[in-house]
């Protein structure tokens, strides 16, 4: 299935969890938040939530700003 992660299209196996997607972009598990199709997925749900075909996954963290 095709999933967009932080703007980049990726081929991922069916059943890939949000936790697995996060692990591909960062080792950090704190200070990071995930949205799928503009809805926040809370950290406690990452391991139990599978991404689906055509999902847009955003993995954000805090950077210098403001």
């Amino acid at each position: 299935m095709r999933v967009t992660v932080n703007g980049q299209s990726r081929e991922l196996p069916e059943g890939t969890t949000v936790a697995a997607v996060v692990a591909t972009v960062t080792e950090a598990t704190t200070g990071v938040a995930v949205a799928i199709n503009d809805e926040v997925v809370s950290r406690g749900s990452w391991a139990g939530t599978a991404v689906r075909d055509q999902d847009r996954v955003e993995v954000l963290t805090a950077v210098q700003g403001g």
Partner: protein
Amino acid sequence: MTTTDTTGMTGTTDAREHADPLVIAGREFGSRLIMGTGGAPSMRVLAEALAASGTELTTVAMRRVDPAARGSVLDVLRRLDIDVLPNTAGCFTAGEAVLTAKLAREALGTDWVKLEVIADEHTLLPDPIELVDAAEQLVDAGFTVLPYTNDDPVLARRLEQLGCAAVMPLGSPIGSGLGIRNPHNIELIVEQAQVPVILDAGLGTASDAALAMELGCDAVLLATAVTRAQSPAAMAAAMRHAVRAGRLARLAGRIPKRRHAQASSPWEGIGTS
């Protein structure tokens, strides 16, 4: 007994300042200088500037994770024991800002947000329509909302009425260093506000920060004036002192301005007459 610290200020003065905390939504801060972290050339320079500023609350932005990034601004803030205030910089619509605030709450464990909804990249001025919409949604969702707003007393009043914890009018456009372009409007906002007024954006140097406090603002939020100064740590120290000086001057009550001179030495007893 009073003691003199390296700033030349006495212990008595410090004690008075400690009895004069900034209170936002029930949370107390000893420093009335809120810093931003944008624009610093390195994490080391940023850390030195933040330490020199004495700030206790500092903004960060939310962005896509960069796998190549080294060092985190969060590590710097944790090491310096500074509270984090996420912003919604870069958002053009209420929807974007609300989602960014929710992601920040999830990532950082705070429901405080510096709400920023800009109209265009050229001016970076707040879009008042989207700003009010986003503020309303976030207040309803339980956030402590600190909106970056225009220097418009009516808009500031609307934001306060819908439950914002502070109002943060700009002095001039973000990063411009133009100072406070409409001090009259800032005074009007201060006079009517029942929540803290935080002068946010446009300050260039220490006298701008002092003026904000003299006008009655409760705090100052700045980044570029420090992070892009030739010596960020030195400018941070200057801002720290300017905010303190301006606050003390505000509390002291300045003399009215006069058109003509008023002698401070007595006229009586001049020996040459």
